[in-house]
């Protein structure tokens, strides 16, 4: 129906966005009848979402004409932003921002670089930026989950940790089991995604490839490749950030400085 009314792709896109937003707002109004007030949050989120995504689309449209190496700058900017965002999950841990940024840079950066070098990710901006950003975003989420879990574990077991310190244990040894459980917990979403791929969900990238006319089998296999890359980068990020952050939980004199009050 819409295609007959809107003849350019851009106007058609905005019309489709409008209908999707109306549907979302209808659900919000339905919730209001049950005294669940989401109106302002939902309205702001929808407005913000469309502005942000149109801005990204516009930038990508401009970048299509730019040299390929510009991708490196864009991905670096994304890594810095991702480090800053996921560090908020580790409040009270000194150095969390630096640790997050380095870990995401190493985890997402290494996997993206290796896969680009191997030819799995195309160096074209239209390929490298979306796939790279997916890898970075997932590394960011995993990093946030790992740091948040580590912080909670340390706060919940401060007594045991200080007892071990008082018996002469090395700081890294006192939190080793909490670091392990943090890594494990942070990777559950990435492993579950891989496990349920195609059964519970068909991810966005595959949907996009199908919509743009790619061979369904190749789209499916490439989606697996991306999810596997996400698991690799998330695992490396989580491993590195947990290893680095555990040292920041202690002072140079081997005192536990990560405490609920401080």
């Amino acid at each position, binding site marked *: 129906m819409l295609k007959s009314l809107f003849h350019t792709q851009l106007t058609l896109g905005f019309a489709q966005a409008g209908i999707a937003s109306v549907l979302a707002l209808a659900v919000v109004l339905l919730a209001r009848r049950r005294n669940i007030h989401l109106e302002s949050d939902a309205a702001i989120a929808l407005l913000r979402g469309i502005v942000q995504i149109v801005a990204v689309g516009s930038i990508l449209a401009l970048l299509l004409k730019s040299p390929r190496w510009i991708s490196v700058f864009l991905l670096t900017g994304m890594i810095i932003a991702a480090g800053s965002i996921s560090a908020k999950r580790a409040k009270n841990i000194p150095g969390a921002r630096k640790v997050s940024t380095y870990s995401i840079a190493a985890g997402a950066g290494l996997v993206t670089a290796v896969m680009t070098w191997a030819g799995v990710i195309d160096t074209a901006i239209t390929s490298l930026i979306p796939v790279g950003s997916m890898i970075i975003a997932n590394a960011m989420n995993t990093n946030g989950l790992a740091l948040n879990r580590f912080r909670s574990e340390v706060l919940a077991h401060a007594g045991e940790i*200080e*007892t*071990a310190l*008082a*018996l*002469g*244990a090395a700081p890294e040894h006192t939190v080793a089991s909490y670091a392990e459980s943090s890594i494990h917990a942070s990777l559950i979403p990435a492993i579950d995604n891989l496990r349920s791929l195609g059964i519970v969900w068909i991810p966005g990238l595959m949907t996009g490839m199908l919509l743009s006319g790619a061979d369904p089998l190749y789209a499916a296999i490439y989606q697996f490749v991306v999810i596997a890359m996400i698991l690799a980068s998330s695992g490396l990020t989580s491993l590195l950030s947990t290893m680095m952050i555990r040292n920041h939980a202690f002072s140079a004199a*081997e*005192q*536990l400085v990560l405490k609920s009050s401080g």
Partner: protein
Amino acid sequence: MSVAQETVAGTVVLRTEHLGRRVGDISVVTDISLDVYHGEMLGIVGPSGSGKSSLLRLLNRLDEPTSGTVFLDGQDYRQFSPRELRRRVGMVTQRPFLFPGNVAGNIRFGPLQRGEVVADEDIARLLERVGLPGFAGREVANLSGGEQQRVSLARALANHPEILLLDEPTSALDEQAKTGVEQLICSLVKDTSLTCVMVTHDRDQARRMCDRVALLEAGRLIQYGKPAEVLGA
């Protein structure tokens, strides 16, 4: 302020000089200077929030002093590595915080950090010493509060500390277990000439157990000397 500088015959093994700690704008320990003599039981008493436990945590450097320092055998304790210091100055806390597993595993923990393995016979001897013969293989989850505190004591003793810090070691126990652990600590001090610094809010316990007591109020040392002089008869 009247600070009674009681002299007890013996060597000073631990000395605090103008020791203090501030957390933000709050001074939790202020300008505390006192001596601990070899083989004595020094009690730290005072009302809740007076800085007793905060002072104790400074003695094995679990917290960092913001002023002053501590001398162990005449040497500034910052010259020792934290791990070496904490081996020499052991600690038993109000809650035992035993590690999951069995009793023997807990006792082996401290020495294992230095690569030393405690022999089964030594574990048996330590357990006998703390009144728990044959407990080596018992799971810590199945122990009573009093038994757990005894294991905690044995675990600290396995490190062969020169000084033992005790932070309200009986306050979480019932009356019967409290009496038992109290007697055990007194006999350990007497039989092995172990130097102890014990935090307690219980003035009667301080009178019963301590050679000298230091009275704290709002983080400051108000008085220290013989229990009868500081706390009354």
